[in-house]
């Protein structure tokens, strides 16, 4: 029964996503494409930043795709569902444990993250031209990073989506997302922060740091990055903690 209902819930999200595919693509693609044009194409040609910056940036762009798509695809509908429309209530009445509905949202977020990477990666590579040291030899690690990245940020989306009132959405963008993106080592390697020791350790609470570094380990391994074991271990712990908190909050919102 549970598996069947889970499948039906996933299918519902797939049908809705298919219907909104243009909006989803725009949301997923515009920012990375613009970023690649400016930092991967224009500034290197102007000689303002070195050409090998692309090797640092491409994994970061992929990391951002696997961050923002899951977090937004999970958090935003939940904020409006719990805050105003109550649309999710028909699913909360399904004869399955409440947590299953939340887990399904997380799985759906991971799948959307995978799709985002499949779109963003080739487009970014195409726009940047050849990237020094870029390799697809570490595909298994890349796959693990995409899935773990999707999982940690879908779980974060679950927590935000069940904690944020609708009127605080723009605040959430400014106070949580903006620092998370700028201090997530997407645009520079973590070792680049060696000169800023306080910041270097402070950013370690940011899950994006591990995704960015993990993407570097997978895509441009010659760029210095954190040890893969540390990246994977931390991401698993962060996913577990965020998922636990998100499920707890979800139950609180679902049952009065």
């Amino acid at each position, binding site marked *: *029964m549970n598996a*069947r*209902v889970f499948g*039906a*819930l996933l*299918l*519902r999200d797939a*049908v*809705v996503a298919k*219907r*909104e595919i243009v909006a989803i693509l725009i949301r997923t693609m515009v920012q990375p494409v613009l970023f690649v044009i400016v930092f991967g194409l224009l500034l290197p040609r102007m000689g303002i930043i070195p050409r090998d910056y692309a090797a640092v940036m491409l994994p970061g762009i992929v990391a951002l795709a696997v961050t923002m798509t899951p977090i937004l695809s999970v958090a935003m509908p939940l904020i409006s569902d719990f805050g105003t*429309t*109550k*649309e999710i*209530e*028909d*699913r*909360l*009445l*399904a*004869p*399955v*444990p409440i947590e299953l509905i939340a887990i399904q949202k997380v799985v759906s977020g991971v799948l959307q993250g995978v799709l985002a990477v499949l779109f963003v990666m080739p487009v970014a590579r195409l726009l940047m031209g050849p990237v020094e040291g870029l390799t697809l030899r570490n595909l298994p690690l890349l796959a693990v990073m995409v899935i773990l990245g999707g999982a940690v940020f879908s779980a974060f989306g679950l927590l935000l989506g069940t904690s944020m009132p609708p009127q605080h959405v723009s605040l959430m963008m400014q106070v949580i997302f903006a620092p998370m993106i700028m201090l997530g080592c997407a645009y520079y390697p973590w070792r680049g922060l060696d000169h800023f020791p306080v910041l270097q350790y402070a950013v370690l609470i940011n899950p994006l740091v591990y995704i960015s570094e993990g993407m570097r380990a997978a895509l441009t391994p010659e760029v210095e990055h954190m040890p893969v074991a540390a990246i994977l271990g931390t991401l698993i712990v962060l996913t577990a903690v965020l998922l636990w908190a998100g499920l707890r909050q979800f139950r609180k919102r*679902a*049952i*009065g």
Partner: protein
Amino acid sequence: MIQIRGLRKVYGSVVALDGLDLDVAEGEMFGLLGPNGAGKTTTIGVLTTRVKPTGGTAIVADCDVAARSVEARARIGVVPQRPNPDRSLTVRENLVFHATYFGIARAEASRRADALLERLGIAEKRDAKVDALSGGQQQRMMIARALTHEPRVLFLDEPTVGLDPQARLGLWEILRDLRTQGRTVVMTTHYMEEADQLCDRVAIVDRGKLLACDTPAALRAQAPGETIVEVLFDRDVEAEVPEMGGVTRTEARGPLLRAYTSSAAAAIPALLALGDARGYVVRDIQVAKPSLETLFISLTGRKLA
């Protein structure tokens, strides 16, 4: 079909349900009548597994809703107070997906959806977006959706609030139809007339407690055999008034003076004269004949709406 014993729900310092006891028989159309804040929606919330009770038990279709909520959910259908359709889906998809959330195969879900849309008179809207429906049509869709998994008990929370009179009558037809099919239905309402016309039995609740429970006819018979005249003055009044105009009893609530009388025609001039003598200005006068409404007022001390 439903047994509620000593049900309590406390939110912080607010007691929403204060030891509620109720029984609903199979095939019954049961009405929960009460003013806003009486605890009707909380009761429905507990019975539909969405609100965790602080104490007491509630059994729905042989399932303790707190201990076996997953099983209970399979046996109930819910039409919430405010329509909450899945706006990303079409009308028909709303029904089909809802059925599949209950483990019903897609082909069977589609068959049921088509039959229900037909029965509730919105078949021509099947492929429309939900937002293209009128309020009445949306409420029909919500009822159709709640029936797709053939629940043993259907809960409707204020089903006709916010509908225009015509849509409301249309919905009444649908509810009567459900009643003749022998489905157990529990509905809340704060429209006296609705409870009177549609329900087999009505429970009057206020402040989380059951005040009376019987058939509408029996409840009407319990109503004080007197007309209630309410006069609203411009300032607080005293309850003690001299004997006059067939008035047997009076109550004062702030500026409102309520008089129970055998003859409104005799009481009204007497009450006006009394106000005059005391220098009060009359703001409003209302008359209620013996009915569910006067029973309600005599039980709760306040009006429904």
